[in-house]
């Protein structure tokens, strides 16, 4: 489809949606236009004027111009899962969709039961004592941790003193960023050759100023920090709180317990690990769980059971306050609950086994491709559920790097891969993750395509450099994105700048 921007469609007076005029009795009672004169809109907003069908056709075209989940996506660090339509359809029912969070709890027993039961499931998986689903994503759950830490230290009168958060340079950016936004000073630990920071560096960073540490494990390289117990102990020794960012839960779910390892709190990404669709960037849920000691500081409300009845416990005087309005993206919680029920304990453990074995199968095949190399080559042990690779040798040989190859993969129906979070410690990185969803055939296809493109890079680098060639559009030029006279976040800005440029060109 060569699809115009919606603002270009339509005709004067075209309508996609009508509303009735107020009933006669209403018009009579309140007049024709009750908006105060001072605040009445005079201009007509410049919106498209199209039929219902034209809106449908336009957005169906756009949907078909989105590769989403139609090919093979081994998008590392995000654990591509099957997004069950069973639970999707359940949450489209009016029993969720047309429910207001301020309804009386008597009218919400179904959804409260599900949230309560799912809380129990996460408690078992993590060893924590209470979960809350208010955070709107993984980053928001990290932010929740920082808010809880503030409330915890404030309650102890040490908020002015506990000002530092310690993490690894390789932790997800949301951990240092949310801590900084919450007002903490961030200390990033560098990596050693074994792929993780040294215990000595940690101990040097910890002090009576440390409010909390925020860690993930395994990391995005697929490396597991075997000293994690000692890390937690070291933090506890200075009184700091320990937060486990369970973004990479897939490789260890059912195998580890955050609480048994000593952590005070953790978070799960329900839109990732628990099979709720991420929808290209949310609505998502970062489920935040913590020990009974920290629970009083959580955002309110939490779901509780009183006898046979489920209630929302709002009376939490030590709470850090709200992270976000209401109780979270409830439909996503229902989908995560459904995922956990469909998988069961045995399925969750099996999924973890499959994820790790499948990644090692990938490693095994990828290792045979000349031109790529594994990150942290000194770590020779088998990796966890994903591995970071580098295209540095191919890039040196051909000038073709990870961006070009990702673009070219789409031409084969393979979704572009994940490269790496910032900073790019590994040059020309890519990070595949097979998870439990994809078949061995899918994985083999993915590797075959990569091998083919690497061959293209050697034989016809221009073909790869100018990719994609059979996607809806050609390669996007990036120069506008940092240029205030060219960037345009709305159609009105685009038209204005285009006209300005034309006028300047004419002048």
């Amino acid at each position, binding site marked *: 489809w060569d699809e115009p921007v919606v603002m270009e469609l339509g005709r004067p007076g075209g309508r996609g949606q009508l509303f009735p005029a107020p009933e006669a009795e209403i018009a009579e009672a309140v007049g024709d236009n009750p908006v105060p004169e001072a605040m009445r809109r005079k201009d007509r907003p410049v919106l498209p004027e199209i039929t219902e069908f034209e809106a449908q056709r336009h957005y169906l075209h756009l949907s078909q111009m989105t590769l989403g989940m139609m090919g093979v996506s081994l998008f590392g660090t995000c654990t591509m899962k099957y997004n069950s339509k069973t639970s999707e359809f359940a949450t489209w029912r009016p029993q969720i969709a047309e429910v207001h969070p301020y309804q009386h709890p008597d009218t919400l027993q179904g959804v409260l039961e599900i949230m309560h039961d799912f809380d129990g499931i996460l408690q078992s998986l993590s060893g924590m004592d209470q979960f809350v689903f208010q955070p709107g994503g993984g980053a928001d759950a990290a932010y929740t941790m920082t808010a809880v830490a503030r409330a915890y230290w404030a309650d102890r009168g040490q908020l002015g003193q506990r000002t530092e958060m310690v993490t690894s340079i390789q932790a997800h950016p949301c951990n240092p960023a949310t801590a900084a936004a919450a007002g903490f000073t961030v200390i990033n630990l560098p990596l050693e050759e074994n792929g993780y920071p040294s215990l000595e560096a940690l101990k040097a960073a910890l002090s009576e100023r440390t409010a909390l540490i925020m860690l993930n494990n395994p990391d995005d390289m697929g490396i597991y920090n075997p000293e994690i117990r000692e890390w937690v102990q070291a933090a506890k020794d200075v009184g700091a709180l320990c937060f486990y960012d369970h973004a990479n839960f897939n490789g260890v779910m059912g195998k580890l317990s955050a609480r048994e390892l000593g952590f005070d709190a953790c978070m799960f990404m329900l839109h990732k690990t628990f099979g709720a669709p991420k929808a290209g960037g949310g609505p998502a849920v970062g489920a935040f769980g913590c020990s009974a000691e920290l629970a009083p500081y959580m955002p309110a409300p939490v779901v509780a059971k009183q006898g046979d009845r489920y209630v929302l416990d709002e009376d939490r005087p030590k709470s850090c306050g709200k992270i976000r309005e209401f109780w979270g993206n409830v439909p996503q919680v229902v989908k995560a609950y459904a995922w956990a029920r469909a998988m069961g304990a045995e399925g*969750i453990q*099996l999924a973890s086994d499959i994820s790790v074995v499948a990644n090692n199968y990938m490693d095994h095949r990828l290792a045979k491709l000349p031109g790529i190399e594994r990150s942290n080559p000194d770590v020779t042990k088998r990796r966890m559920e994903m591995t970071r690779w580098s295209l540095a040798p191919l890039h040196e040989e051909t000038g073709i790097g990870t961006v070009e190859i990702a673009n070219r993969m789409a031409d084969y129906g393979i979704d572009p891969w994940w490269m790496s979070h910032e900073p790019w410690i590994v040059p020309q990185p890519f990070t595949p993750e097979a998870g439990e969803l994809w078949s061995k055939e899918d994985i083999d296809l993915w590797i075959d395509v990569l091998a083919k493109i690497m061959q293209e890079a050697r034989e016809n680098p221009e073909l790869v450099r100018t990719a994609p060639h059979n996607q809806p559009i050609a390669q996007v030029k990036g120069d506008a*994105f940092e240029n*205030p006279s060219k960037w345009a976040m709305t159609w009105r800005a685009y038209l204005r700048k285009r006209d300005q440029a034309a006028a300047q060109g004419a002048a």
Partner: protein
Amino acid sequence: MTGPTRAHPWMANSAPGMLEAMLAEIGAANLAEVLEQIPQDHFRKTPLNLPPQLASEMELKRDLLGKLRKNATCEENLSFLGAGVWQHHVPAIVDEIVGRTEFATNVWGSYQSDHGRNQAWFEFSSQLGALLNLDVVQLPVYSWGCAIGHAIRMAARKTGRNKVLLARLSDPERLSVIRTYCQPQEMDGAIEIVLVEPDAATGRLDLADLRGKLGPDVAAVYFENPAYLGTIETEAAQIARLTRAAGAETIVGVDPISLGVMTAPGDYGADIVTGPVQPLGVHMNCGGGVGGFIASRDEPEYVHQYNGFLVSVAETVQPGQLGFGLACPHQNSYGQREHGNDWTGNSTYLWAIAGAVYMSLLGPDGFAEVGRLIISRARYAAKLLAEVPGVRVHWPDTTFKEFVVNFDETGLSVAEINDRLRARGIFGGKDLSGEGLGLGQSALWCVTEVHSAADLRRAAQTLSEVLK
């Protein structure tokens, strides 16, 4: 380790023999060998204690629907709840599009492979910009409260000041979120929150109090239009002038569904505008339909303060073709970690698509119609309720879709009245009596385009019955 005897439908490699085949290929005798990185004493000791597996879709569906059936809905009942999540009509096409697996999926691709989604996002910003009369709109953040929090922090970064003025009659839910973003005062970079008193006669901001508090340390004034209690801020332009004169930023919160009939905030001096996305075609979803937008004028000093994703149109290598991508991607936390603007992550971008479809369906005339219908019905409802003996409506003549109903003279609490209404299939307005606003036994009722005149008469009639 032995594999499962029956494959699971969500795991291709759970088919018999697949795991063993991969183990053989990599030369591992068993799973333990593959997990060699994990020290033995790290493995969990407590066995998992989960409810039984429901691997059969039929059983799973039954469990879900059986539980959900215990909820009562605003579709079968007549609901007057609002206050941050509102019952608006959601066109079927919106549901169709956001339900398409291509959009409702995990996958995140490139500008080219996700072109359709990027265009839909750009169209969200473009259409919302047309409603706001502003040139820059960011993809939505988690909620309106979060949008306000980020907007205040934008203003603080831009001005280098650290105080913000807000209305005392603020939604406690949003205010709590804002406090989380700005405070506590002990923290580095904290922003002090100062509340501006209301004009008792109108519920609007008291401009004298505002003037008094607007000092050189104020980064921003934030007000809503319509405000928490439904009041329309007719002095918006004057507030913006005062704020600008003090060197501070005017941040406005608007209900986008009002913008077919209410002046665009870009036209009365707003510097940064926030608002809820949910009214634009998103179901209430038990509160899981929220999202918050942030918009501003197109000036680099604003653009460079955004925390999230700014989708910009861009040329492609093919002349004449337009594509889309992220402007200023390096200023957020993905690019700069703790040095980025606040933080970003997965948000509520599916609702941007919902909003794009919704706005394209309504167009200028649809927004005018729905706005007029809402305010007319809400005013009528206020009138009918005020006629019920013992019932009073605060500031009846200056509200949009929500208004405060006071029951002090009935001798009953809001909770008691709402219990009685609920028994008759009506969800009364949100109880304000515990919010410390000095409004006594009051409730915030919300009336939208979904409430017919007959519904409103039924509500008033039922109310008079239960008060007898």
